[in-house]
């Protein structure tokens, strides 16, 4: 048991001692701060019909626990789904494979480590929740149990399942990270739909018992028929909001058991995964154009020809960025499984024929999200592939390579959006057309800036996922491509953001180059 504990803690330490984790934690805390809106805020998070709770311990405790459960379901998977990959990339996995540790114990250790990472964030949100209670100081008594209980029963089972699911995803889809990321997006959407519909046992986020208790309270005091649960960042309609006193949930054994089932399901997933785990007996899959032509181990050439370097044809200077753009596009194209391009093609056809609003508001953000794996390491792949020593010692790396990477990313976004762009062009609607072009620029620069800032691709993946989910839910302030907002002021705002992201990207890269 001691050894198992050591493995978990060591893994946990190496994952949390990273800049990316700190940035993710900071962003999580920023969001957590907004989980319980101030009295004068223009939005609500948890709402029962037209009612929100007074800011007593029960309301703040339960609301933050519910929101954390949803938030970490949304982001936690992306944050933790590379623990095994890291062992593959670093070669540690091959050492692990030669040790007596069983597949089950190794995967369990990874799942527990994932869980601890998410639990750390949860703990920070928990403390922030208590701090918010005292800051808001509504004069209500402090009841610590109203904080502890919801986190234990709602949040903890959810994050444990997510931690286990991340391990399972890595086991079964280790060669298809893009598919794993996209697949989880749809899984989360499905879980969100089930949650909204009162899913009972299938409620991953654990919100149903709380929503029921809140609805019963409202019904009991106000006899209002409209007690629909509304969760998320809801803007507008706050003027008509009334308050009620929520006193927590009376947890029954059955409801606690239904939450514990998610922990059991997580363990079951790990058990099943252990039966199929590759145990690092893998070969990196490289896409060769004609696979049969290339044997896996290429034999050495027998006839050796000596060359004299001084007699080689002279080369001429060429300081343009076109060759970079060409190669960056080539790498973007080759990344991920080939069949994903069929889905892209399907998305482009849908952009061409779906109703214009649906194409712009729903299909375009999803089609762009499918490129998450291509964009997320656009400006970090030099470091992850250890090419940066060549890059940073090259001629004018800041003003040649980085612009080429950004341009290649934008070209990809515009090629994918081209059917919609053509439709707007034909319809002479230039505002949405420009919005889409700027949206492509924004998301690529967002990927580049976050990549360089965090030194990895996780942060962008998490935020892009959140953006896309919010886009599909038609949340206005995440609309970076003009799906909802059609006005010039909005375009100016996006242009400002693009300029800011470009400035940040170049400054950060300059700093990075000087600090190798």
């Amino acid at each position, binding site marked *: 048991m001691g050894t198992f504990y050591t493995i978990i803690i060591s893994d946990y330490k190496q994952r949390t001692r990273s800049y990316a984790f700190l940035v993710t934690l900071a962003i999580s805390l920023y969001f957590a701060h907004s989980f319980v809106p101030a009295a004068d805020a223009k939005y609500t998070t948890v709402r029962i019909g037209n009612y929100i709770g007074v800011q007593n311990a029960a309301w703040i405790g339960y609301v933050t626990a519910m929101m954390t459960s949803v938030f970490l379901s949304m982001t936690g998977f992306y944050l933790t789904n590379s623990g095994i990959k890291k062992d593959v990339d670093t070669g540690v996995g091959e050492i692990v494979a030669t040790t007596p540790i069983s597949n089950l114990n190794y995967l369990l250790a990874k799942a527990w480590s994932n869980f601890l990472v998410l639990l750390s964030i949860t703990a920070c949100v928990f403390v922030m929740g208590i701090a918010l209670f005292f800051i808001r100081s509504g004069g209500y008594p402090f009841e610590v149990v109203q904080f502890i209980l919801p986190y234990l029963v709602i949040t903890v089972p959810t994050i444990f399942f997510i931690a286990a699911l991340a391990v399972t995803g890595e086991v079964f889809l280790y060669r298809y990270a893009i598919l794993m990321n996209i697949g989880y997006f749809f899984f989360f959407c499905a879980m969100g739909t089930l949650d909204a519909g009162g899913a009972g046992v299938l409620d991953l986020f654990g919100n149903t018992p709380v929503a029921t208790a809140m609805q019963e309270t409202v019904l009991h005091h106000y006899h209002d028929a409209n007690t629909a649960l509304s969760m998320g960042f809801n803007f507008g309609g706050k003027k008509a909001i009334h308050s009620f006193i929520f006193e927590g949930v009376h947890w029954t054994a059955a409801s606690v058991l239904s939450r514990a089932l998610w922990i059991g399901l997580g363990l079951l997933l790990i058990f099943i995964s252990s039966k199929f785990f590759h145990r690092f007996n893998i070969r*990196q899959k490289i896409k060769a154009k004609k696979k049969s032509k290339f044997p896996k181990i290429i*034999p*050495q050439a027998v006839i050796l020809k000596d060359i004299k370097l001084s007699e*080689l044809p002279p080369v001429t200077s*060429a300081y343009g960025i076109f060759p970079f753009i060409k190669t960056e596009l080539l790498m973007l194209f080759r990344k991920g499984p080939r069949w994903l391009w069929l889905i892209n093609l399907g998305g482009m056809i849908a952009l061409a024929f779906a109703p214009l609003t649906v194409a712009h508001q729903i299909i375009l953000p999803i089609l762009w999200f499918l490129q998450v794996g291509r964009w997320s390491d656009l400006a970090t792949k030099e470091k992850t592939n250890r090419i940066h020593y060549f890059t940073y010692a090259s*001629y004018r790396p800041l003003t040649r390579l980085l612009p080429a990477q950004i341009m290649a990313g934008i070209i990809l976004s515009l090629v994918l959006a081209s059917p919609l762009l053509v439709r707007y062009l034909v319809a002479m609607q230039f505002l949405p057309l420009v919005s889409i072009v700027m949206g492509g620029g924004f998301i690529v620069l967002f990927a580049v800036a976050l990549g360089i800032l965090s030194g990895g691709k996780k942060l962008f993946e998490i935020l892009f996922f959140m953006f896309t989910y919010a886009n599909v839910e038609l949340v206005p302030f995440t609309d970076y491509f003009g799906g909802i907002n059609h006005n010039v002021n909005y375009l100016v705002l996006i242009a400002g953001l693009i300029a800011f992201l470009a400035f940040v990207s170049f400054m950060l890269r300059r700093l990075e180059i000087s600090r190798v």
Partner: protein
Amino acid sequence: MKLSIQNISKRFNKEKYGLKDYSLTIENGILGLLGPNGAGKSTLMKIIATISRPTTGSVELDGHNILQDPDYIRKMLGYLPQDFGVYANLNAYEFLEYIAAMKGVGGPNLRKRVEALLEGVNLIESAKSPIGTYSGGMKQRIGIAQALLNDPKVLIFDEPTVGLDPEERMRFRNLISDLAQNSIIILSSHIVSDIETIADEVAIMQGGMLITKGTQAEVIKQVDGRVFESVLESTALPDFKTKHLVVNTSRQKDKVLVRYISIEPVNGSVPAPASLEDAYLFLTHKSN
């Protein structure tokens, strides 16, 4: 060409220095850098390659301060880092053309040059395969080829022979010796014999400082007359090691032939001709 390194220091934190008040002048030819792990060889090479900046000091190439104007040297630089990677799903042609673009090299002759270099490093047969399918030695050779793409005048090779088989090592030596007349070539290696067979000059480093620099003959001279060989009982070896700097041992049935460096040889010892390895071990040991 003349590369002048003046009093550079690289400080990592309050107590740890990568380089300490290091000065060196390098002219056309091959300079071999020798030193134990952590001696500062890679740090020095990264500074010359403009990847890293020293905390203090200056680096000039033909009078140009390359710390202020790194692009001056970058146009004529070939650099092979110790620990580098590749883009796994590009083939050798695509990868080299990509690196060529970084170096600002193009024109109609680029493809011919790439092909010639691939022949030179014996990768032409597999040049159209994705680099991800290459063995470690093949990746090292693609690294060597990229360093030579732009007809470099300053070449920096950090452990270039790692992963190469003896034949490839010989080919590498032949390949770069051709350039030594008109270029500055700096190479580091843990394999003293690699340096011994190729370098015009040798610099030995330890603890971020330069211990000595000179031609091989000059460096070896520092240990001349101090190298001996003696046959000992196996059981006497541990005690012998505490009193003398043993540079090599070879088993001979129940006895052991010891090569050692000492001012006062033990009875029965015979003088042996000094090698660069002897000098290296003696100087780094003395420095400790």
